[in-house]
C-alpha cells in the first residue's frame, strides 16, 4: 500500500493511513469551554485512572490554575483567565422565558487587557474602583493533547514508541520509549513532556485502554457539565458547529472553534475546542503547523546530499586506485 499523498500534511483519516483495516471511526474530544466550570475533575480523574504522579505543590497565582501547563505529570490542564469584560454567555432578554431566542444586539467585545495570572503581571482593574468597574468574566478551559491528524511527535519518534491507534489517537508506548526526547521539540502545542525521574515521554493517551473496552476516557466520564465530550470525531464536529450557532444566536458572537478544521496546519485535531476568545488568551498557538510538514522536501534534499556523498566516495575510491 502506498502512503496517502496527504500522509504528512492536509486532510486525512489517520487510522487507515496507519495500516488499520476496518478501523473504527476516529474518536476524539470536543471541549466546549463555554460550559466549563473549572472544577478540575478532568485533571483528577485522569490522574486516578492513569496513575499519573503528583506535579508539584506550588501556588502559581495564575488565577485558580496551580497546574500551570500540560506536562508529563498533568495530562489535562484547566486554564483560568480573568478578564474585565462582560461575561460571554449571558442570555439575551428574550431568552429569559426560554422562548425561541432572537439574535441580540452584538455586545461590544472589547479585547481589553487580559490578566493571564502570570506572576508579576499587572492585575486588571487596578484603580478602576467601585464606581468605574465594568463587568467581568472568567474563562476556563480544560486543555489536553490534541491528537493531531499529522502528529509530528509520532513522525519523529525513532523507536516507534509513539504510534497511531486504530481510533486515530496518538499514544506513547511506555514499554518502547527510550527517552530520546525528539518528540518534545516536535510538538507544535508544547504538550508532550519528559518525566524527570524516568526520562520517558508521557502525555494523554485518550485512555487507550478504556477505549478498547468500549468506555469513555476518564476525564470525559467525570466532567460534570459535559464540557468535555467524547465521541466519533465527525459527530463531534457537527455538534460543535451547532453549538457555535446556538451561542451566536444567544448573543455570544465571540464563540469560535479551534482545532476542528482538517485544512489547518496539523490536518485538524482529534481534540478540538470551542473558545470564547482568541487562542492566545488560553495559551494556545494561534496557527499551529505540524513540524514535519517539510519532511518530504527535507528527505529530498537529504537524499541528494547522500547521493552526492556516495558519488564523492566512489570517485575517491576510483581516484585512489588510479
Amino acid at each position, binding site marked *: *500500500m*502506498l*502512503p496517502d499523498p496527504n*500522509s504528512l500534511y492536509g486532510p486525512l483519516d*489517520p*487510522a487507515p*493511513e*496507519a*495500516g*488499520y*483495516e476496518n478501523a473504527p471511526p476516529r474518536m476524539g474530544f470536543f471541549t466546549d469551554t463555554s460550559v466549563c466550570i473549572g*472544577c*478540575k*475533575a478532568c*485533571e*483528577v*480523574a485522569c490522574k*486516578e*485512572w492513569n496513575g499519573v504522579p503528583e506535579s508539584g505543590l506550588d501556588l502559581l497565582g495564575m488565577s485558580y490554575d496551580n497546574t500551570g501547563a500540560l506536562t508529563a505529570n498533568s495530562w489535562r490542564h484547566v486554564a483560568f483567565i480573568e478578564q474585565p469584560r462582560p461575561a460571554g454567555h449571558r442570555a439575551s432578554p428574550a431568552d429569559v422565558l426560554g422562548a425561541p431566542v432572537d439574535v441580540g444586539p452584538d455586545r461590544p467585545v472589547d479585547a481589553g487587557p487580559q490578566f493571564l495570572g502570570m506572576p508579576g503581571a499587572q492585575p486588571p482593574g487596578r484603580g478602576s474602583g467601585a464606581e468605574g468597574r465594568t463587568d467581568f468574566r472568567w474563562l476556563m478551559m480544560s486543555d489536553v493533547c490534541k491528537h493531531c491528524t499529522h502528529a509530528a511527535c*509520532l*513522525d519523529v519518534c525513532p523507536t*516507534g*514508541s*509513539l*504510534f*497511531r*491507534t*486504530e481510533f486515530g489517537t496518538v*499514544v506513547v*508506548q*511506555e*514499554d*518502547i520509549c527510550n527517552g530520546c526526547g525528539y518528540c518534545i521539540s516536535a510538538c507544535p502545542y508544547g504538550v508532550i513532556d519528559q518525566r524527570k525521574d524516568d526520562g520517558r515521554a508521557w502525555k494523554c493517551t485518550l485512555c*487507550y*485502554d*478504556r477505549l*478498547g*473496552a468500549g*468506555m469513555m476516557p*476518564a476525564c470525559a*466520564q*467525570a*466532567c*460534570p457539565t459535559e464540557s468535555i465530550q467524547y465521541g466519533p470525531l465527525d459527530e463531534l464536529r457537527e455538534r460543535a458547529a451547532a453549538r457555535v450557532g446556538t451561542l451566536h444566536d444567544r448573543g455570544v458572537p465571540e464563540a469560535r472553534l479551534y482545532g476542528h478544521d482538517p485544512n489547518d496546519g496539523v490536518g485538524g485535531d482529534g481534540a478540538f475546542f470551542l473558545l470564547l476568545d482568541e487562542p492566545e488568551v488560553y495559551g494556545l498557538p494561534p496557527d499551529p503547523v505540524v513540524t514535519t510538514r517539510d519532511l518530504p522536501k527535507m528527505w529530498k534534499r537529504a537524499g541528494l546530499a547522500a547521493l552526492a556523498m556516495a558519488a564523492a566516495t566512489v570517485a575517491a575510491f576510483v581516484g585512489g586506485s588510479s
Partner: protein
Amino acid sequence: MGVRSWFEGWPVYRQLTGTDPLGRGAAAKSDGSRALTARTDTADSVARSVCPYCAVGCGQRVFVKDGQVSQIEGDPDSPISRGRLCPKGSASKSLVTSPLRQTTVRYRRPYSTQWEGLELDTALDMIADRILAAREQTWEDVDTQGRPLNRTLGISSLGGATLDNEENYLIKKLFTAMGALQIENQARI
C-alpha cells in the same frame, strides 16, 4: 517463541510486509499496547457506592482486584449524577488508599510529648472505663427541685455528618442510654 514468530514480531518486518509502510500505526503497536485492558474489565468485584464528600450523593462504582480498590468512578445509572464526579469524588481512590491514612491505634499519655502504640481492644476497654468514671464523677440524678435529669454533662461528642444513618442511630441510642446529652455534629456548625 520460534525464530519465525520472533522475526514476524519485529516491527520492521511488520512495517515492510503489512498495511503500515510508514510504521506509524498498526506495525508500531508494542506488546504492551496489545496486552492493554481496562482494569475495570478485569476487576474481581464491583460495589455500588456513594461519594463520601458532599451531600449531592453521586453514585460511585468501586472496583476491587485482589482485595484492593483498583478504581472508583461515577455510576452512569445514577439519576442524580449520571456517572459524573467532581475532583473530590474523582479522587476517592486516592482518599481510601492514601499512604497517609492511619491504620493503627495511636495513644498519647497525659503530659507526653509523643504518640505510642496501643492494642485496639485495650483502647476500647480504656475508653469504656473512662466513660464510666466520667459518669460517676458528673452524674446528675435530679435538679434542685427534684425533677429527673438522668444525665452526665461530663462527656461530649462531635461528629456524624460524614457517617452512616445506622452509625448515627447507634451513637444516639448508646449516648442517650448513657445519659450523655452533649452530642453534636456538623449540622450545628
